[in-house]
């Protein structure tokens, strides 16, 4: 019997049994967040770094998640390499982790990565000892450059953040997977379980998503669906799909049919 335990995901020096990475926002409330994350089976949970909000009463999302999950801070909201690097360094100080999901956004409309700033920030953070997991465009050249800089994984977008459009360029994703030795994790654009399954069938090593679960009508159920989609897609990828053909091929025995 196949066990997910025999198919671990290794990023840098850490090994995980789940290939689902989940965001901690924007859930309707903390309990739905915790229930959804538990249902997802995810071991890696992303958080943002923000100016302290005294109205929050001193409790942070970390107080809820700490101990149970590997916390992956992000640099969401940063538009320059300088801000992203400082946010990563603040995250390292606040959370005591050198892991960072590096995001450097180009504009508010598309939330597309600014590749120039992304490469600059990735270079600086790798040199500063960070385990860098960049959210990046789905182009093979940028991914290769990020890997050459020493990033621990690449996380190409499937589609724009929060769009739920799925994996828009599966051919690029396959190329990125084939050309690089680090984990390839689809980050952004996943809308439903079949999108996540497709990403895994393309050979991706994991899926990172937030809105598809947190904004679903029933987040806990969607977290469950995504978990199965990711696991199903991974099994299918490892099992090896049959080739596509233009003609039918009978699955029942061809001989011994009556009337012949």
């Amino acid at each position, binding site marked *: 019997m196949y066990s997910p335990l025999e198919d671990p995901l290794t990023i840098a020096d850490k090994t995980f049994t789940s290939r689902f990475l989940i*965001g*901690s*926002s*924007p*859930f309707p409330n903390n309990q739905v*967040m915790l229930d959804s994350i538990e249902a997802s089976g995810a071991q890696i949970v*992303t*958080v*943002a*770094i*923000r*100016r*302290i*909000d*005294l109205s929050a009463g*001193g409790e*942070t*999302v*970390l*107080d809820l998640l700490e101990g149970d999950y590997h*916390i992956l*801070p*992000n640099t*969401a909201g940063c538009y320059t390499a*300088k801000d992203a690097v*400082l*946010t990563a*360094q*603040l*995250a*390292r*100080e*606040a*959370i005591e982790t050198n892991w960072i999901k590096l995001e450097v956004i180009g504009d508010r409309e598309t939330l597309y990565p600014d590749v120039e700033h992304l490469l600059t920030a990735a270079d600086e953070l790798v040199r500063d000892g960070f385990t860098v997991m960049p959210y990046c465009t789905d182009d093979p050249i940028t991914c290769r450059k990020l890997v050459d800089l020493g990033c621990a994984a690449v996380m190409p977008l499937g589609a724009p*953040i929060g769009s739920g459009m799925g994996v828009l360029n599966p051919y690029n994703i396959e190329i990125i997977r084939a050309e690089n030795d680090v984990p390839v994790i689809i980050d952004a654009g996943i809308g439903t379980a079949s999108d996540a399954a497709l990403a895994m069938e393309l050979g991706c090593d994991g899926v990172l*998503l*937030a*809105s598809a679960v*947190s904004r679903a009508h029933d987040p806990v159920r969607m977290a469950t669906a995504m978990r199965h989609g990711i696991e199903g897609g991974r099994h299918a990828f490892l099992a090896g799909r049959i080739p596509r053909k233009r003609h039918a091929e009978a699955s029942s025995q061809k001989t011994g049919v009556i009337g012949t």
Partner: protein
Amino acid sequence: MSTIRVNGEDRDLSAATVFDLLMAEDVDPKARFVAVAINGVVVPRGRWDREPVKDGDEIEIVTPAPGG
């Protein structure tokens, strides 16, 4: 009056150190998951009680928040 900028807002400078500033901002200096940067440089927690705050400093006080 000397001024500093804390999380994007101007403040009169009344604190001598980062520790004093956190107290003045109602942030418990012992609270976990807090980080401080002055003028783009992180000030490690161990230096908060002696790191000076000076006129014109731009200070960020951050903490983790839900995020995707």
